[in-house]
């Protein structure tokens, strides 16, 4: 068997429950290099495929802390160092008045971190990916659920993996080329 250009085998399912069960079985059978493609989030699918929890919350926290510290520092620097103004004898570092802007910069940086972090961790934008070459894959954004076991998985064997996927009641199986 010589498949130098084979990216993986992709099984197509009708229902989220089917792809979830297939993902669990594939993980139990020892497959690791695989991914599922679904038209909407399917809960438990990432865990079934063996993906760990995402680091995204830490990225967002870092963004929020940066925005909070950075925002307050900016205001402190303006009001105390760069342009001190005596307003009714109040202290230059009148920190309660700095809270609204500090809050806004916190939210702004955390939100930017959430979106840019999500895109970066997902590797987006990515204009091309091998799965797009599968003719039926365009249904992954409509009503079909796909499980793709990749050829780089050490357990991958074109015949045995196909048999395994057929046993998962897949509606159809396609070869995906790189």
């Amino acid at each position, binding site marked *: 068997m010589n498949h130098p250009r084979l990216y993986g085998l992709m099984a197509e399912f009708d229902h989220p429950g089917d792809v979830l069960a297939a993902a669990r079985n594939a993980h139990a059978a020892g497959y690791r290099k695989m991914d599922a493609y679904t038209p909407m989030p399917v809960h438990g699918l990432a865990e079934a495929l063996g993906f760990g929890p995402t680091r995204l919350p830490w990225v967002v926290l870092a963004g929020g802390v940066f925005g909070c510290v950075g925002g307050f520092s900016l*205001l402190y620097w303006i009001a105390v160092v760069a342009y001190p103004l005596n307003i009714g004898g109040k202290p230059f570092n009148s920190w309660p008045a700095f809270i609204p802007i500090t809050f*806004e910069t916190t939210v702004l940086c955390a939100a930017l971190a959430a979106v840019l972090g*999500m895109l970066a961790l997902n590797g987006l934008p990515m204009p091309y990916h091998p799965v*797009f070459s599968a003719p039926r894959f365009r249904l*992954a954004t409509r009503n079909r659920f796909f499980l793709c076991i990749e050829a780089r998985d050490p357990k991958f064997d074109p015949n045995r993996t196909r048999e395994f996927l057929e046993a998962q009641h897949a509606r159809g199986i396609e070869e995906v080329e790189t």
Partner: protein
Amino acid sequence: MDDPSKSQVVDAADDPIIGPGHSYATVTDQISAIVLTRRTGRGWLLGFGIGFMLVMALLYSLANLVVRGVGIWGVTAPVGWGFDIINFVWWIGIGHAGTLISAILLLLRQDWRTSINRFAEAMTLFAVSCALIYPLFHTGRPWLAYWMLPYPNTMGVWPQPRSPLLWDVFAVSTYATVSALFWFVGLIPDLATLRDRARTRFAQIVFGMLAMGWRGSAAHWQRYETAYLLLAGLATPLVISVHTVVSLDFAVGIIPGWHATIFPPYFVAGAIFAGFAMVLTLAIPLRAFYGLEDFITARHLDNMAKVLLATGLIVAYGYMMETFMAWYGGNEYEKYMILNRMKGPYRNHYWALIACNVLAPQTFWFGRVRRSLPALFVVSLIVSVGMWLERFIIVVTSLHRDYLPSSWGMYDPTIFDWSTFLGTIGLFIALIFLFIRFMPVISIFEMRTLVQAEKGPKHE
């Protein structure tokens, strides 16, 4: 009809949030067809045309303002804040319902929000765009607007971080940015759907670029959902902070009628009130013209009417407390201010405001009104007018009677005040029509989740 529970008037809470018989494929096809396959209707052209003409009026008014200065507006002593701040607050308030629907109702797991959140978020974005025109152009020199931001400059001056006006700069710009992010993140999976279903090469390329290669991977969905939930958690306090800061623009001032501690909650409730009214105004024709009754059901309209009633009561409480505190506070200027509102030269505006915002929504106590499309539409328009009058009353009546009778005056909006205001309405209409035509107006992937939830037990 022998079952007594069925023979009663149907309770709206029993209505489904999605019509019967829908599958993943049908929701996808029906919503994406509005963008991809349906022809551009005459009604769309008419609506967009009206909006576009008003945009021309806006451009003419703003060009005039830039050439001739802010003197073309009616603002002068003693009423130095006129339509610019009234319309700014009105538009920002309208925007708030979008964030409320998309963020707060998401956190509260109100899944009926799903079919209205996309266009409510778009409404937020467009309302904020309209609002931002006013602070930008009321300076008279919009090309120097960056002076409002803190940056090292050769003048050696910095903005004043103790002033609510600077808080406003940060609050509104953050709100605009986060609303745009939230909207775009929500759109990514649907843009991928449009990319995969588009028939023309041009649409495939445009939607393909916008979707950024989204392929619905399980790992991506996991991070996507985390990001979406965290954004909702961030947007929730943000939306409350924005109108709080807007209200502090007034409340930190010492003008009678502005200097009140009730302003922040009263403004936030008013914003939600105005915003839900606008969502209803948009949703009712939208579902009729595009046949979306299966997705925006009677249940949605009923729920929105209830939100309008609840926030309307909070707003009514705000008016009541303003009046009560004017009496109870014992400050003669405060007392004069409230009596002047009720009996002075702007009394018609004041009582119209009470009729629009306090009396009109009371009809929503009746289920029959909440389920009648014409009634909902008319009341939602009345509320929009009422909320505009509220801001007019707050701004103008508080300013037009200064402490000295020699500095009393009246506020006369000029033709340019009106044309700018109508122009922003036109901009809003034009943007909404463009959005309906070129973007999925209902979140397709979230509707699939609803289909799954409705079907769930059958597949087990």
